């Protein structure tokens, strides 16, 4: 069998995630086959037939083969799932079932209500330490139609947006109207963290939440210590709390 350069590797032999491993094995097999068919030495093949004879159609075939095995891709951009619903896993938490939807993070710290009626429903990495905590109304913002609705109608005053997008584009036209932000991903240096700092909007990144429903009154401990790059580098936990206000 024709061997590729990477077929002999003392220290590395496979990728660590299944889809990447499947794709890379398939592509390497394709390269091996086309290299053998070319009858050329590698130095002539690599920027010759390896470019002209390994085509978009070949890669489409690899994609189809994985789907034919029954795999469905995890999506991250809504447009990907919308354009190829047959290729991606379903998208829970759509607009019409928000009333029953909540983020459920397995590591969310949940405690019963204290004497002040504060029921802890999660934690997050505080972007900026403010003088006081923030109380507001939880509203999930997870899709373009929701953003468009708020763009046209205005964001209700006191909204603490619950977002699973650590980027700064999905909520771009309405971000400045939020009272606070709880983001289920990213770090304090993600784009959303940078932007909320510029706007002066309290924000927790990497928020691990459970049971917060649309319309709940919640409190963010934005008076908590902010998490720094050094904390991330040294894997130091530095979290602030999120409560549901029960009375």
């Amino acid at each position, binding site marked *: 069998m024709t061997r590729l350069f*990477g077929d002999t590797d003392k220290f590395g032999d496979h990728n660590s995630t299944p889809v990447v491993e499947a794709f890379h094995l398939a592509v390497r097999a394709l390269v091996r086959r086309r290299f053998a068919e070319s009858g050329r030495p590698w130095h002539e093949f690599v920027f010759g037939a390896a470019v002209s004879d*390994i085509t*978009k159609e070949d890669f489409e075939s690899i994609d189809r083969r994985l789907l034919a095995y029954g795999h469905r891709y995890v999506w991250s951009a809504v447009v990907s799932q919308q354009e190829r619903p047959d290729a991606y896993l379903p998208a829970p938490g759509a607009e019409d079932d928000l009333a029953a939807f909540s983020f459920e993070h397995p590591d969310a710290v949940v405690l019963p209500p204290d004497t002040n009626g504060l029921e802890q429903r999660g934690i997050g990495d505080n972007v900026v330490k403010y003088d006081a905590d923030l109380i507001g109304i939880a509203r999930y913002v997870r899709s373009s139609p929701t953003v468009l609705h708020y*763009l046209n109608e205005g964001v209700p005053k006191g909204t603490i947006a619950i977002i699973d997008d650590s980027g700064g584009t999905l909520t771009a036209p309405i971000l400045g109207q939020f009272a606070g932000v709880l983001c289920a991903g990213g770090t304090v240096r*993600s784009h959303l963290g940078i932007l909320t700092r*510029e706007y002066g909007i309290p924000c927790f990144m990497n928020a691990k939440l459970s049971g917060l429903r649309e319309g709940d009154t919640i409190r963010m401990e934005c008076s908590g210590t902010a998490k720094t790059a050094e904390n991330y580098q040294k894997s130091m936990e530095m979290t602030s709390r999120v409560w549901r206000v029960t009375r």
Partner: protein
Amino acid sequence: MTLTYAQLLETNNLIQQNSDETYWLCLTRTVQESKLFPVSPYMILSYFMAFYRYPALLRKIENHMRAEDIGDRVRARGIKCQNPALGWGLPNFYLLGREYLISLGLIRPQDAVEDVAYVLDFWKRFQLAWHRNDAHMTNREFGHRAQILPERRLQIFHADMYDCAEGDALHTAAQAFMAATSQYGFLASCESRIALHNQGPYKIDNDREMIVRDFMDLAEGDYPWLDGVAAEMPYNNLTVPMAVQDCHFNIIDDWGSFESQPEFKSDHMVGVGLYTSDSLSESYQPVGMDSREELTATFVDLTVRAKEATSRLWKRIAGWTRDQMIDAGAITYFAICKDIAHVAGCYEADDWILIDQRAERFRPLLNDEYSNMSLWEMLGPLSHPGQRTHDYQLMQHSNLPANTYSLIPYTILDDHDYTATCGDIEPGITHLDPKEDRYRTTQGVLTQAEYNRRVKAFTPRLSGERFRYKCESWLKYQYDTSEADEMYRIEQENSRNLRDKGAGLRRLDIEKIRRS
């Protein structure tokens, strides 16, 4: 073999520097994510584009202007020629493309070695020139700091800055402008931070520091998706010198992001100014700086324009197909260093805004899951097979037996078993609307041909042969010469407070002038 052992040693050192720093940046800043844009798919596509096109494009640029000359020319410009564009994006997008192709079995570490050495040598020469005043190659080397500007420019930023305080009209307007324009920059750049850049810090008093904040590619220019929606943006690039009190910027990284102790909040901001610049401006040109009231009104006006452009652009993007989103993102990333072509006067849109057909063929692989996971492996656990090294190694920052990027084997000097280059630019495609031939510059809205023609005919006076080597070390002992005085007077031509003041002032003098 045209490369020597010494050149290979240096090339591998430059690869390793980028390897270490990229890991640190990704560890502390996380992998980008967006529910709107397929970010990882477009990032990977851009890496392939960079691998196949950068060597030829950089050689084309150097037929017009050398990398170190471009570095000199753009030092006093707030355009996409600093971090993250040249400082990090140029070498790392190229190296990431190379590493992906190695992982896919499509190339070996000893393929395209003359390209690799050339791209990194271009980067090194540019960086050394751009960083000439702090004499480092990267912010990383400087302990995450960037002091790019000469004293004469810093004095003007310092002298002409208006004081502000939390709650006053200027402070409110400036803060709103920076928030809205950052937001617009992220959207115009398809979720990347490359429209934004910070350099510094610079010491302006015992308890005050200044950073210089750039907001770039805001108007109709190189990006087709800004045609129409950005027609009302009157400046393509804006720069805000910002003074803070009781706040130390302890990290300004090679992505142009900052961290501070204590963490920066708006009430730390005590002074601001506003400028524009591009390849056709002598240096930074003041914007709305004739009075405090004018500057406040200018910030308010630009904030409204940025917000309106954001809404228009968001609606346009929300209607895009996935392929259009990927194209726009990949172009944004790939073309991160395009402004060097503008500076050299050889910018051609087709070089920068089309997806090279060699990269385009990979698109069917780039579903969200493969892209996210393969990128995570590439930048987090470093678990692509080609990244793993022997078991005794402790990589910087990660302590892993791995490197982000593969080094070039020295055996090629013996066995000559290598390839030199991936070849010239090949045709490209796009799913986006064609670019309209309009470019907003400091000399008005120009066509591409006219923009290039004017750049070719223009040499900023302080970049000409007479002054280019008259550096800060020279100035220290020659500040009382007529040539030093002339240099300062040229820089001071548009300064409200320092016009014709010359070269003899110190920082304390500037503070007295501000207070007078």
